C-alpha cells in the first residue's frame, strides 16, 4: 500500500456516496409530484454529481495511474464501490426519497463543515463548495419531511414508514475503519464522532416538528465501505454503466 492509498480510498468513498445518491435522484426526472419539485430534484442531483466528479478527479490524480472520473465511475464493479448503504436504497415513494435525502444531508452538512478544516487543501476546498450545497439539501428535504410528517394521515404514515426502513443505515455514517483512522490521525479526515451531536440535534428538531418517532435500532446495517452492499447497488450500476462499458475506449 502506497502512502497515498488511504487518501485515494477515502476520496473514492466520498465520491461514490455522492454519485450513487445523485444517480438515484436523477431517476426521478419527469416523475416528480410537481413541476417545481422536478426542478428541485434535478438541482439536488446535479450538486451531488458535481461533488462526485471533483472527488473522483482528485482520487485519480492521487492514484496517478491515469484513471479519470469516468474510469472510476463507470469501470468499477459493485464490490469496488464504497458508498454508504443508505444512498443506494431505491427511491420508493416521495417520502422515502426525501427521508433518505434528509438523513444524508443531516450528516453531510456538519461532516463537510469539519472537512473544510482538513490539512489536505484540495479536500478542504471541495468540502467548502459541497457544504453550501448540502445545507440547501438539508433545508429542502427537511421541509418536506416536516410537511409529510405533519400533513395528512396518509403522508404521515408514509413518512414514518420511510424513517422506519432507513434508520438502520444511520450508524454506518459514524463507523471508522483503519483507513479512515489513519487520515483522522493525520488531520486530513474529520472524526465522524465529532459531528454526531450536531446530526442528532438536527434529527430531533426536524422529526419533532414532523411528529415522527425515531425507531429504536438495535443492529445498524453496514458494509458499504468494504464493498459489501445491499442487493440494489448492482442493478443501479448495471444501468448506469451499460452504455459506457459497451463501447470500450470510446470518447463521448
Amino acid at each position, binding site marked *: 500500500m502506497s502512502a497515498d492509498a488511504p487518501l485515494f480510498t477515502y476520496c473514492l468513498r466520498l465520491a461514490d456516496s455522492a454519485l450513487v445518491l445523485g444517480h438515484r435522484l436523477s431517476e426521478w426526472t*419527469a416523475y416528480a409530484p410537481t413541476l417545481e419539485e422536478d426542478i428541485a430534484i*434535478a438541482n439536488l442531483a446535479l450538486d451531488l*454529481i458535481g461533488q462526485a466528479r471533483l472527488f473522483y478527479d482528485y482520487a485519480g490524480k492521487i492514484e496517478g495511474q491515469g484513471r479519470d*472520473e469516468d474510469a472510476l465511475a463507470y469501470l468499477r464493479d459493485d464490490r469496488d464501490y464504497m458508498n454508504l448503504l443508505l444512498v443506494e436504497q431505491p427511491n420508493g415513494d416521495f417520502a422515502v426519497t426525501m427521508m433518505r435525502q434528509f438523513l444524508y444531508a443531516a450528516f453531510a452538512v456538519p461532516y463537510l463543515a469539519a472537512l473544510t478544516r482538513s490539512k489536505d487543501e484540495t479536500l478542504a476546498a471541495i468540502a467548502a463548495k459541497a457544504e453550501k450545497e448540502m445545507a440547501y439539501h438539508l433545508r429542502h428535504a427537511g421541509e418536506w419531511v416536516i410537511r409529510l410528517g405533519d400533513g395528512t394521515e396518509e403522508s404521515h404514515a408514509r413518512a414514518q414508514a420511510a424513517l422506519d426502513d432507513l434508520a438502520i443505515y444511520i450508524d454506518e455514517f459514524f463507523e471508522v475503519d483503519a483507513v479512515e483512522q489513519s487520515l483522522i490521525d493525520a488531520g486530513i479526515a474529520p472524526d465522524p464522532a465529532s459531528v454526531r451531536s450536531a446530526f442528532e440535534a438536527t434529527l430531533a428538531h426536524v422529526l419533532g416538528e414532523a411528529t415522527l418517532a425515531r425507531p429504536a435500532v438495535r443492529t445498524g446495517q453496514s458494509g458499504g465501505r468494504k464493498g459489501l452492499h445491499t442487493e440494489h447497488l448492482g442493478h443501479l450500476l448495471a*444501468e448506469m454503466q451499460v452504455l459506457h462499458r459497451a463501447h470500450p475506449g470510446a470518447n463521448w
Partner: protein
Amino acid sequence: MYAQALDQKDKGPAVIEDPERLARFEARCAADEKIEPKDWMPEAYRRTLIRQVSQHAHSEVIGMQPEGNWVTRAPSLKRKAVLLSKIQDEAGHGLYLYSACETLGVSREEVVEALLAGKAKYSSIFNYPTLNWADMGAIGWLVDGAAIMNQIPLCRCSYGPYARAMIRICKEESFHQRQGYEIMLTLARGTPAQKAMAQDALNRWWWPCLMMFGPPDAVSEHSSESMRWKIKRFSNDDLRQKFIDATVPQGLFLGLTFPDPELKFNEATEHWETGPIDWSEFKRVLAGEGPCNRQRMRVRRQTEADGAWVREAARVHAKKRAARQALQAAE
C-alpha cells in the same frame, strides 16, 4: 419543441365584440404594441393564446420523458450532468409558460386537467421513442433547432408575457441546440458504432422534425387573424424551409446522410429541396397513433396520480401551519 397549435382555428363560440374596442385593439397590434394581461382583448385572441401557450407548456413537460429515458444511462458524468440540466430547463420552460397562461385567466390546474383528459395537445414529436444515445444529440440539434425557428418570431409576439417568456426560452433552447450538435459531432468523429448511432438517430428524427412546423400552407387551417394579431408571424412552409436550409449543411458537415434520396440544392433559388413529406404519418401521430402517444399520456397521468398525496399533504400542512400562526398571533 412545437408549432402545431399555431395551426388550429379558434373553435370556441363566436363572441360579438364591441367594434370600437376591437378597432383600438387591432390598431395596437398593427403598431406592434404589446398587449398586457389587464388590457382589453377579444375573446378569440385570449382563447387562441391560452390554447397555444398551454400546448407549448405541455410539450415542454411531456418532452421531459423521452430525454429522461437516457439520464440514468448517460455514458459519461459530464453528459449525465448536461442532460439533467437540459431537462431541468424544459421543466422551467413549462413553469414560465403555465404562468404566462395564468395571466390569461386560466389556472395551471385547469390546463393540466385538459391535457390529462386528452383535450389539449402537445407537440407530435414527443410521440417518437428515444432508442439510442445519439437521440439525445438529435433532439437537441434537430428538435430544439426546429423549435427555435418557430419560437424566435414569437419573441415579438403581441402578447407581452408570452413574448417575454419566449425570449428567455429561446436563449436556453439555442444553447440546447448547440450542445445537441456537439453530441452528434463527437459521435460522428467517434468509433464506427458511434457513427452508426448518429446516423440511425438522423434517419429516425429528420422527417418527424420537418413535420413539427405543421401542415403545408396550402392546407393549413390557421386563420389570418393569428397573423394580423401577431400571434403567428411566419407561415409553416417558410419556417420549414428556413430550418432545412440551416440544417442540411450542418448534417453534411457531420458526414451523415439525410434519409431523403431526393434532397438537392437548387442553385437558382439557393434553397435545399426535399422529397415529399409523408403527411399521412403526421396525421396518424396527431390522431394518437404514434409509437409513444399512449405511453406518454399514461406516464403523465400516473405521475400526476402518484403525486396527489404529496400535493395534498403540502396543502394540509400549510393550513395547519397558518392556523397555528394565527393562534400564536392572537395570544
